[in-house]
């Protein structure tokens, strides 16, 4: 499902003394199958953008096209439920939203809420629990007897069981240890490929953005500062750093080397393997 934001503006609490412009003139295209990373520091408008992706918020100007539907400020919206089943958001710390007696019931809740019958919901629960790398035996346990990492996977399984076309991840690895982080991200990447999903990742991790995303959008002070491939984005690290954003470790390292040596690498390297390959050539260049 294609999603497209066109000149979207959103103001909180319009016509009150507390009115506040959160985002303006935001245009981002997310064709079906895209892995988009949304970056920007706290308060840059990422969360506001995210809530437009499944019509939790309605723009105060501009339009949001989600598949066949167009959401604008004027139209009274009906039947948004269908959109929310197709575009699923995994919020931060999704394990805080678990509530049922068993893992199975918790996973079934979402699909049944969207009208799926119990038998089918259970079938999906079995499928989803395997997709998040847990054993089916866990389905009969209480979600509250699980470890934090397992709880997060269960919460994610609940989202997958709705069979969304688009999955929006808000800092999905916050609070996890390095292994947990890598496992969860690899899992989303695999699902992204296998199910041909669109994935939108809101993250502070430049490493993840550069590793997994086809496209990165940078938000700054409520506007889209730049959209491009990881290479486009990280080829100009100075600018990002000036905006108070981070760049991947590899890029930082390359920058430090270039500064010390007084000349540039042939290209911007995004992985440790790439920069290692370039290194012998880089080190020799000063000789000539």
């Amino acid at each position: 499902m294609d999603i497209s934001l066109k000149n979207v503006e959103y103001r909180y609490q319009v016509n009150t003394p507390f009115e506040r412009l959160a985002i303006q003139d935001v245009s981002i295209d997310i064709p079906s199958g895209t892995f988009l990373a949304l970056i920007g520091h706290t308060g840059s408008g990422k969360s506001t953008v995210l809530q437009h992706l499944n019509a939790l918020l309605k723009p105060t100007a501009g339009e949001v096209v989600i598949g066949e539907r167009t959401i604008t400020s004027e139209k009274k919206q009906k039947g948004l439920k269908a959109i929310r089943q197709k575009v699923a958001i995994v919020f931060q710390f999704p394990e805080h939203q678990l509530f049922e007696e068993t893992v199975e019931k918790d996973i079934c809740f979402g699909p049944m809420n969207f009208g799926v019958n119990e038998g089918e919901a259970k079938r999906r629960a079995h499928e989803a629990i395997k997709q998040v790398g847990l054993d089916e035996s866990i389905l009969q346990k209480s979600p509250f007897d699980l470890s934090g990492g397992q709880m997060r996977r269960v919460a994610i399984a609940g989202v997958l069981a709705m069979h969304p076309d688009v999955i929006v991840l808000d800092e999905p690895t916050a609070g996890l240890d390095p292994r947990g982080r890598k496992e969860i991200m690899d899992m989303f990447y695999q699902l992204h490929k296998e199910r041909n999903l669109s994935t939108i990742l809101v993250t502070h991790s430049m490493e993840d953005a550069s590793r997994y995303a086809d496209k990165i959008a940078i938000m700054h002070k409520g506007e889209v500062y730049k959209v491009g491939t990881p290479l486009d984005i990280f080829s100009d690290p100075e600018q990002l750093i000036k905006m108070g954003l981070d760049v991947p470790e590899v890029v930082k390292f390359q920058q430090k080397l270039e500064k010390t040596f007084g000349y540039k690498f042939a290209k911007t390297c995004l992985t440790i393997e790439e920069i290692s390959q370039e290194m012998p050539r880089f080190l020799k260049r000063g000789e000539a």
Partner: protein
Amino acid sequence: MKNSLVQIRNLSFKYDENADYALKDVTFDIYEGEWLAIVGHNGSGKSTMAKLLNGLNFPKEGSITVDGLLLSEETVWDIRDKIGMVFQNPDNQFVGTTVQDDVAFGLENHGIEREEMIKRVHNALESVKMEQFLDQEPHHLSGGQKQRVAIAGVLALRPNIIVLDEATSMLDPRGREEVLETIRQLKASQEMTVISITHDLEEAAKADRMIVMNKGQLYREGSPEDIFQLDEELISLGLDIPFPVKMSKMLKGLNIPVSKHHLSEEELVEELWTSHLKM
């Protein structure tokens, strides 16, 4: 040799009689004025350790002695004066309606005189560079600012030890750097002892000493240099290797002369530059 400030001896803890040990037979010391990083996978016992340290839970076996005082239900309040905690979620630790009320909260609980209280609140907020936010409401602050106010609340009570329980894990990179820089300055200017429980290995690499926890047990204790020699072993413990170490290894593999596994990018760049000049 530095003075041992906290002695942790044969510490064991279970959350539930039938559960596995969350912490098992853990023994180590915390030295005065050091920055100690405690790392380990989720569920390795790091946070349990933090909770035992200031008496939020009591050990099943073993003992904790802080500055000569054995931790027990009788001494817990005296020990909490010595150990300040900063937790993970900045939104969960605000009690005041303004920044200064929040910092004053702990002091009020201790029955500190008003004059003294005002002085301490100002000093504490000054040392985390939040003195301009006295009358701001907490929800107008960024995550990093909130955590700095939480730190000020702890500082106002003048503890000797500050425990950061994943205090930067919910912050964006800028907020994280703000908080760490604040702590570094405090440590230098006030000779504070810092215990940082963290998943951030780049941060741990800058500590004076590290402890690696694994499945409730103390797996290894040493300087960051020692610990990061463990290399692939760290990955099998659910952890990772900091970037400069990975980079050093990779370059060595390509026969580029790198003398050791550097813990900072600056050091590695420096060595590459020096050897380049000699080529």
